[in-house]
């Protein structure tokens, strides 16, 4: 009997389809309608940090260089108060097989899928993750299907995503280039049901654990090179995996005092599912359109419980404008000899103004770079922006308007971050958790869970629950 493949019918079979496609029984970890056993879920796939390091070593993933950005640090110091201007180091994740830290996520998930006997993997992603999955699947002899949101209804495609299509196909993947819309998820479910492949979601435990090695590595490298722990690590924030995995790795390397800062490109005001807004943005990931909703409600995703929980780990969350990221990308190429993709420089752009706040003997680590190619560089992305009606000019980045104007800083001292208050995010998160529990009255265990999951306190959670 053939199954009904209409949108509503497939979506109603979501739970059953997903259960078969991960090999994880999420029900086991549910504690109440609010709380679940997060660490239990993370442990359940059975890999220790040293197992992950071994798997990644064999797959050629990780062990990327940690490089000090001396010229950029010098520029920052020239505009900082006396005694200020931390040293900036960057983890050159471009050196991973497909050119980004996403290989760490993909390596463990694809290895796991292969071990469980799946013949192929499916992922819905318009970012570097698709290429990472396809690259790792090629290595393990698995088939790959990637669903990408590429075009608006005029068939105009973001150059950066068109490059990802090319990269995925270069690794032998079947790629579906789709128009704008959340139905990406429906496509993924259809494929999972039809093929019996593994769902290499970004939000399963292996997809997050694979990044723990990044946090761990940067601490051990910095210890070797400089004999100290990083004072601050700046991490691009989209769905939360990068922050979560890196922060967990920092903890496993005993770097408990390091300040964990998330950074997203400011695209506030643009609707992520809008056909009209789609090509009015230059950044397709690591932006506020993912960052803020995923922080306020991590479980909005394609798994019953998201293993990526940024709010659990963040000490600070900052926004930076598109123009500042392009500017930082140019500085990295012209002053440090590292030509890298703009999206991967979101955390670098944020680190520059943040370094001004820290002392000269302190160290900030920017934990990623990504490969660059046609479509993935300032010139192609700005050319595209202008073609789509965006004004591009030089000036003070505070004149930036997402979807209308991109302003490239004239000077480094014009760069600044906007702090997005974490308490505001925590309040929304607590409200969303209560609403999702549909009438369940939070008990003591729920309150403890919410405090831990939002890196706040029992008092903070109580106060906010009372005010709802």
């Amino acid at each position, binding site marked *: 009997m053939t199954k009904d493949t209409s949108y509503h019918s497939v979506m109603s079979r979501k739970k059953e389809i997903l259960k078969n496609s991960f090999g994880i029984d999420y029900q086991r970890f549910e504690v109440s309608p609010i709380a679940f056993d997060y660490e239990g879920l993370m442990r359940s796939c059975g890999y220790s940090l040293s197992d992950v390091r071994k798997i990644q070593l064999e797959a050629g993933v990780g062990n990327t260089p940690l490089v000090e950005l001396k010229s950029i640090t010098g520029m920052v110091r020239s505009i900082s108060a006396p005694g200020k201007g931390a040293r900036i180091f960057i983890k050159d994740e471009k050196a991973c097989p497909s050119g980004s830290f996403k290989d760490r996520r993909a390596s463990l998930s694809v290895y796991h899928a292969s071990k469980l006997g799946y013949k192929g993997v499916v992922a819905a992603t318009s970012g570097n993750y698709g290429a990472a999955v396809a690259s790792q699947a090629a290595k393990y002899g698995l088939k790959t299907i990637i669903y990408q949101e590429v075009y608006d209804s005029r068939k105009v495609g973001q150059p950066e995503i068109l490059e990802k299509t090319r990269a995925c196909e270069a690794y032998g993947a079947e790629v579906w280039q789709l128009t704008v819309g959340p139905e990406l998820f429906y496509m993924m479910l259809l494929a999972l049901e039809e093929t019996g492949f593994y769902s290499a979601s970004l939000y399963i435990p292996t997809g997050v654990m694979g990044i723990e090695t990044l946090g761990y590595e940067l601490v051990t490298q910095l210890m070797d090179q400089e004999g100290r722990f990083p004072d601050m690590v700046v991490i691009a924030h989209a769905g939360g995996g990068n922050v979560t995995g890196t922060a967990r790795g920092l903890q496993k390397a005993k770097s408990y005092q390091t300040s964990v800062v998330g950074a997203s490109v400011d695209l506030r005001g643009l609707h992520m599912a809008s056909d009209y807004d789609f090509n009015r943005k230059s950044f397709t990931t690591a932006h506020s359109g993912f960052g803020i909703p995923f922080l306020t409600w991590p479980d909005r995703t394609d798994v019953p419980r998201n293993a990526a929980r940024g709010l659990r780990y963040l000490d600070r969350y900052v926004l930076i404008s598109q123009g500042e990221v392009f500017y930082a990308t140019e500085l990295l190429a012209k002053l440090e000899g590292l030509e890298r993709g703009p999206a991967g420089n979101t955390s670098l752009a944020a680190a520059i103004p943040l370094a001004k706040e820290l002392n000269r003997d302190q160290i900030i680590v920017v934990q990623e770079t990504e490969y660059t190619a046609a479509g993935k560089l300032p010139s192609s992305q700005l050319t595209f922006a202008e073609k789509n009606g965006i004004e591009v000019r*030089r000036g003070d980045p505070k004149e930036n308007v997402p979807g209308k104007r991109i302003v490239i800083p004239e000077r480094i001292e014009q760069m600044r971050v906007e702090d997005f208050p974490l308490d505001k995010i925590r309040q929304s998160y607590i409200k969303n958790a209560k609403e999702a529990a549909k009438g369940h009255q939070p008990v003591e265990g729920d309150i403890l869970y919410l405090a831990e999951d939002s890196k706040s306190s029992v008092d903070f959670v109580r106060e906010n629950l009372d005010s709802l």
Partner: protein
Amino acid sequence: MGNDQKLDARRGDLVQIHKIILTPEQRSQDLPASTKAVPYEAWIKGFLLEDRAKIGSTVRIETFIGREISGTLVEINPVYSHNFGKPRPELFHCGKEGNPNVGTKKVKP
């Protein structure tokens, strides 16, 4: 579509097909107006399974992983056309201030 675009495809040619996945009525209800008004579409590449086919005809392809999919033939030997963009004058000044040995003093950006 390039100038050297063929109009006829033969079995085994690399082609791109187009499919309407969902009409506006069949789409998710929870969409912004501009998205809800248009169909949900897909483009996929693969090797042609028909002996001969013209642009615009309904064809079957075998994808890179060996799956069979049908749709409307839209391109033969599809080209990756994303590029490096145009030089951007807004970026010419970047990095000069940090390296006194770079750039000429004769040209002020």
